[in-house]
């Protein structure tokens, strides 16, 4: 038997273009069968009750990173959160923190993408390409596994206490992305490329509160990357002092 329980969804409403209407919550009562996700319920609310509700979604399977939001006080992907898993008949939905709200649950991701672009999130090589693949050992490949999993959902960005007071801090996801390349055996970026993060807006800004790790739906652990990058920078500095490195270009 399929059982449907009645739930109250309290959803944050705000419209950047109508700043005179203060942010508020609107409640929707809806019957949900067990197993249904928060995203599927949101879609039903928009379809059946209130077409003016705005939120993002795409894959509905926890791989595209569109639907991160605050669900009953905790940041998660709406599409992988089962309504029945909260043990409560009221579900409160709010937009991701640390980003400006455009409308309802939709935030402006521009600063997040700007930081992503700033760290040069791409493989940089100087050697000529071989005819076939650049060989990479299984263990070298495994080294970047965790970072590769990042779906750029900005959950960690929303959870970061440093970003809530320093909006131009680079943020956890961008560090995880940068380290993904620094650790890639094929990448040949000169170490001085890391100078840009060698400051308080960069890796030294993190308070290691571990909130990003709690928030990440993909077990990426951005703090490991921050710590890893700090170590790389210290090694680089030591080498520079002892004149070991000839940091070309």
């Amino acid at each position, binding site marked *: *038997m*399929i059982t449907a329980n009645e739930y109250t969804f309290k959803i944050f409403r705000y*419209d950047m*273009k109508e700043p005179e209407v203060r942010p508020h919550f609107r409640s929707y009562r809806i019957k949900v069968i067990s*197993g249904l*996700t928060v995203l599927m319920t949101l*879609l039903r609310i*928009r*379809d*059946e009750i*209130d*077409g*003016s509700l*705005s*939120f*993002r*979604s*795409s*894959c*509905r*399977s*926890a*791989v*595209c*990173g*569109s639907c991160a939001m605050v669900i009953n006080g905790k940041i998660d992907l709406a599409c*992988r959160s089962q309504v029945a898993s909260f043990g409560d008949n009221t579900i409160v939905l709010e937009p991701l923190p640390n980003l400006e709200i*455009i*409308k*309802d649950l*939709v935030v402006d*991701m521009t600063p997040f*993408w700007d930081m*992503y*672009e700033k760290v*040069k*999130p*791409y*493989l940089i*090589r100087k050697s000529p*390409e071989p*005819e*076939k*693949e*650049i*060989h*990479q*050992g*299984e263990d070298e*490949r495994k080294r*970047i*596994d965790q970072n*590769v*999993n990042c*779906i*750029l959902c900005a959950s960690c960005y929303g959870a970061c206490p440093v970003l809530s007071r320093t909006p131009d801090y680079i943020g956890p996801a961008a560090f995880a992305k940068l380290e993904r*390349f620094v650790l*890639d055996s*094929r*990448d040949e970026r000169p170490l001085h490329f890391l100078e840009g993060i060698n400051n308080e807006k960069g890796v030294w800004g993190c308070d290691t509160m571990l909130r990003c790790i709690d928030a990440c739906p993909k077990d990426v652990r951005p703090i490991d990357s921050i710590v890893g990058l700090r170590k790389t920078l210290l090694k680089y500095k030591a080498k520079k002092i002892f004149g070991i490195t000839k940091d070309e270009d």
Partner: protein
Amino acid sequence: MLAHDVLIIGGGLAGLRAAVGLCDKYDVGVLSKVHPVRSHSIAAQGGINAALANSPDGRDDTWKKHAFDTIKGSDYLADQSAVEIMCREAIKVVYEMEHWGCPFSRFPDGSIAQRPFGGADYPRTCYSADLTGHVLLNTLNERAVAKGVRVYSEWFVLALVTDNDVCHGVIAFDLKSGEIVPILAKTTLFATGGYGRVYLHSTNALINTGSGIGIAYKAGVPIKDMEFVQFHPTALIGTNILITEACRGEGGYLINKDDERFMARYVPNAMELAPRDIVSRSIQIEIDEGRGFEHPLGKYINLDLRHLGAPKILEKLPGIRNICIDFIGVDPILEPIPIMPCQHYSMGGIDTNEKCETNVSGFYAAGECACVSVHGANRLGGNSLLDTIVFGKLACLAIDEHLRNNSAKPDEKLLISKKEEMEKKIYKLMYGGNEKPYRILVDLSKTMSDCVGIFREKAGIEQALMDISKIKERFRDVHVNSPKLYMNYELLNAIELEYMLEVAHTIAIGAYLREESRGAHFRKDFNTRNDTDWLKHTVARIGKDGEPVISYKDVVITNYQPMERKY
């Protein structure tokens, strides 16, 4: 007015690959209704085919063998010249993606790992665990960032502007500001992906509405082979999230309620690794004949991975394990996965040649929205990611050639009048009648799954055609709730719905007329392939009265004479 030399619609693999190839030389704009990394390509799991011959069991693999497998898999409906191009190019594009940083899984010798996939005689599928689309799309997005490609993220294309078979650009809709913006372009490439959401049960992302195909069709561009719709054998019951073919590639079993590995009855040689159309039908027969399991969410059969053991599942299929745990509460290490066949891929699409050109000068298409055709009546797993990147790349050559040789200027006036037309249309949706868009979509998608699904027959398709015309009537009365233009997803759904109706209509009519069974198109009333009458592509154009006009065109045969498809 905004203007570009090259306007690319779609930020999935096909669109980004084309952008990266053209942006050094031309002023390129990429427009996508979601941020590029949210495109459906991100969800691809299993892998991408290329005859690298890296596997110890496949040292003598060649692109020609890949081509033969593809043509045979296509049930001989693919254009063989196009298949040969794709399979030859495959090796180059996979190495290129690797050089650009794609983190493929590796063999112990450091070369790109390859796994077996359905319908292929060799382990030819390159992969990255079960996140292949994720790594490929990220790699191309990274490339695009490195090259500074101009991206219009969260912009939706409303209409294509063509006149006398020449394309002048598009009318777009900025979702954030709600503005309707004409964009002039010397060349336009559609890379808008597939139409899964025309079906009720689909593995596709929610954004896969096929609107790009519908937009092109409405602008007078012919579309091809729409009746060929792939059903994937293994999608989770309930949510229909895909459980990759790699599960079977890695050795998973399909089991019915009598605890039987039933594929032995249908394809004893290939078993679970037969091509998708055959496995999907086999599963459906098991379910229809009462050998499936019952669940509140539907009838299903089991995909059993337990014998693979925890280490292999954790290493090769970690994403699948997470999906099963998150979405159905099943850990595949301990329990079998409840699956059913679902709509998965659109073999048909905008009619293009091998250069991605359409009938309309300056208008191109690549990726899943296009039909070259390399997949014919049935696509092999791992060939579609390949198709997107190869033809995304090849589109660059054709567009470059066009821009070098063609001095015709796009016409602003045409765009302005089309913009006005679109404004009226949107106004009408906001102040229209009583029909809700979602109700219409549910009815449409249900009709398609019920009547134009895995098994088809005349009476059912007739029913679907009748339903579709009634639904088209109802669409005239459609109405959206909120009068705001920006961030109005209900409005977006209503706009896309109109195009989905056209897409569905062409699928149903193609299926109705094609009186044979070939690949994914299976007619119970004509259950064999008929090369004498039907070795040809279906082409649909919109007629003056808005109804589809069907014609046919020959399949290109080069070296591979059609023969019976045996596995």
